[in-house]
């Protein structure tokens, strides 16, 4: 067993023993299991109400701040939205600026990013920080000095590509994926050599098996995912070349099985009539070998996706007791409204229970694994379809959940939105949107557009939920002392009791929160909680982009659901760090 070079331990978590806690936060998902669980116990349900601001730092930006503040040793690192600065802050000096690395991002890339010019953060490994720039570069920066070690071009804005996701560093591979499902890109996941930055492998989301890195060891669990060159045959001729399926979300890793897990994005265009067929391998969960990218299993969550339900959400890896046995599973709260619990060794769906209000499908067929769509809700030429629930951002979008080893619950920040869609003919012009749908979103049943939910994965049900006015677009973290943190789009940073959902503390930050909170032990031994405030992202586009609320179809339909957001928040990025007095 190799010595870990970073916070990820060599064995996967299981219900009774989370990863050892070292007080750092070296990657946004905390570790390879993506549990976002902290073993720090200084802040608890009794004293969290005394939490106060320790220090702040202005990022100097006005777009959405989605990153997770990393802590390695006594330095904190944050990545900003375009132009993607990397700041290193000295934790022994109240966050004083140590250095800033400016990658020099092509300004034209701002015109190719569908959903605000966000960046979800960097990952630390072996003395370097790795992150992606909006204009399709992956950079490696020396964590001590801020000097660039390498910078590799991965894609081209002229093909509509951008990059916003967090790289996953596994052994000597840096694994990254592209964005652009609304721009007719060809989606991929790429593995770079961590030392040199050279591209070692690229797994496309569609095309012949050789492009998708499907080979003799590929063993999908379900019949529908078996066959030769399905990434070609499940599309109209040639449509896979502009078919989307980028890997812009989260990647997890199981060192024992040596498998990385991630999902692919929606197929393009949104108008499903233009791409009959299952459109493999969009909206698909893949398990691959990190060294070579070779696919070991795949499960297409959403065949012939009609609703832009990208499959890119996080896969939380835990071992859970199911029917008397301990199973190695992954928990995947999908856009389509289900928390998928799957055997992560084989790709079998053990359960798919609804955590949101759903009209677009009636469930996952246990035998075939196929999502049963409600035909009447599929958009298409010549019709306007209403009450499509969940709306395109899904019951949950990118905002990542956290798992508590104490309560056994998954803490899910998410949405409650429905929409109406009128499909039009999408015209492919490279570098411009390829969508073919006019959309208007609105609040789902109940009127609250967001929720923060505690989910029991074994029982497959909601234990408690907190309704919020706006989508809960932030990440979350849960601690061993049963404190869970999340942020609202009005700007409230909240602490709740992880057992009961009772709110314990809140603080009003300067702008809506869509960032990922992290918690760490400072150089002085105290526990701190850090979060970026700065509204934006797809949900906050109406404020971040200064959109006109008279046109509800703006921001791919999100404007209509967020017409009142400008009353509650303005723009502006600030890092907040909290501690006990």
């Amino acid at each position, binding site marked *: 067993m190799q010595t870990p070079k970073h916070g990820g331990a060599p064995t996967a978590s299981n219900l009774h023993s989370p990863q050892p806690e070292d007080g750092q936060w070296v990657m946004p998902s905390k570790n390879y299991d993506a549990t976002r669980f902290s073993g720090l116990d200084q802040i608890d349900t009794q004293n969290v109400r005394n939490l106060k601001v320790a220090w702040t730092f202005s990022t100097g930006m006005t777009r959405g701040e989605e990153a997770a503040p990393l802590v390695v040793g006594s330095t904190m690192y944050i990545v900003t939205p375009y132009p993607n600065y990397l700041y290193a802050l000295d934790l022994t000096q109240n966050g004083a600026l140590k250095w800033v690395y400016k990658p020099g991002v092509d*300004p*034209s*890339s*701002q*015109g*190719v*990013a*569908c959903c605000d010019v966000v960046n979800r953060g960097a990952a630390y490994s072996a003395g370097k920080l790795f992150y992606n720039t909006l204009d399709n570069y992956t950079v490696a920066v020396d964590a001590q000095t801020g000097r660039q070690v390498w910078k590799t071009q991965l894609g081209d804005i002229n093909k509509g590509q951008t990059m916003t996701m967090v790289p996953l560093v596994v052994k000597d591979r840096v694994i990254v994926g592209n964005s652009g499902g*609304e721009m007719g890109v060809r989606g991929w996941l790429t593995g770079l050599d961590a030392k040199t930055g050279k591209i070692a492998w690229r797994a496309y989301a569609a095309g012949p098996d050789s492009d998708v890195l499907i080979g003799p060891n590929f063993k999908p669990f379900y019949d529908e995912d078996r066959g030769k060159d399905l990434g070609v045959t499940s599309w109209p001729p040639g449509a896979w070349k502009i078919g989307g399926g980028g890997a812009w979300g989260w990647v997890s890793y199981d060192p024992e099985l040596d498998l990385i897990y991630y999902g692919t994005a929606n197929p393009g265009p949104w108008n499903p009539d233009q791409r009959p067929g299952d459109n493999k391998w969009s909206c698909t969960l893949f398990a691959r070998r990190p060294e070579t990218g070779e696919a070991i299993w795949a499960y297409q969550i959403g065949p012939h996706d009609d609703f832009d339900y990208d499959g890119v959400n996080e896969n939380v890896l835990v071992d859970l007791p199911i029917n008397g046995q301990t199973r190695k599973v992954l928990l995947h709260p999908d856009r389509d409204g289900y928390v998928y619990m799957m055997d992560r060794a084989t790709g079998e769906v053990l359960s798919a229970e609804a955590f949101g209000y759903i009209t677009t499908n009636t469930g996952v067929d246990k035998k075939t694994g196929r999502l049963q769509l409600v035909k009447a809700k599929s958009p298409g030429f010549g019709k*306007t379809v209403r009450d499509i629930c969940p709306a395109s951002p899904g019951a949950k979008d990118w905002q990542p959940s956290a798992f508590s080893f104490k309560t056994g619950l998954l803490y899910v920040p998410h949405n409650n939105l429905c929409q*109406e869609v*009128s499909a*039009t003919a999408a*015209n492919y*012009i490279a*570098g*411009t*949107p*390829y*969508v073919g749908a*006019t959309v*208007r979103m*609105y*609040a789902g049943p109940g*009127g609250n557009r967001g929720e923060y939910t505690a989910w029991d994965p074994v029982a497959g049900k909601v234990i408690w939920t907190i309704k919020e006015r706006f989508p809960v677009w932030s990440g979350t973290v849960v601690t061993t002392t049963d404190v869970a943190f999340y942020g609202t789009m009005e700007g409230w940073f909240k602490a709740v009791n992880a057992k009961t959902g009772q709110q314990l503390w809140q603080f009003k930050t300067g702008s809506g929160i869509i960032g990922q909170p992290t918690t760490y032990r400072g150089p002085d031994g105290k526990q701190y909680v850090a979060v970026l405030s700065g509204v934006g992202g797809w949900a906050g*586009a109406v404020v971040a*982009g*200064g*959109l*006109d*609320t*008279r*046109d*509800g*179809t*703006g*921001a*791919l339909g999100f*404007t*209509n659901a967020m017409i009142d957001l400008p009353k509650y928040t303005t723009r502006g990025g600030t890092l907040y760090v909290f501690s006990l007095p």
Partner: protein
Amino acid sequence: MVRSTGIMKRVTKGVLACASVLVLATLASSCKRESRTLRNEPPQRGLYDAARESTNEPGGKLPKIGMPSPAEGNAYAISQGQRLFDWYNCSGCHAQGGGGMGPPLMDRRFTYGSQPANIYDTIVRGRPNGMPTWGGRIPEFQVWQLVAYVRSLSGSEPSAATPGRSDGLEKKTRAQLQ
């Protein structure tokens, strides 16, 4: 017999002349709104107004040079612009004027100027923070049609020449949307 016909003639001529001018003027504006050319204008880039994006003109304002847009106030051009706005994926970034990936176009705040020549420049040359460069791709006569349509989104074109909204989604009241 009183010979007053001279004055009467002049007055009548004057009245007639004014009336004719009025009629012609009305005819002229509606002529502009309704006119259709059977041939597209050849490219005339050298002749349009040098687009100014700053209102600070050192040394005092210069008189305008060049010719106005052929599409201004023209109903056919604006409706063609509406068609092209979807066709060239402008609506993909700007929605129905509300914006999304790109800024709104319906609110009269134009980063790079709202005059036809400014908007022409924006489309043809692109802009530094994400507006693509369409020069060489969209024929010039279509650019002017798009320019007129874009201006109509913020009410800068005569409403008699402006098409109705057609975002494809039947309008629902706020109450129906809850």
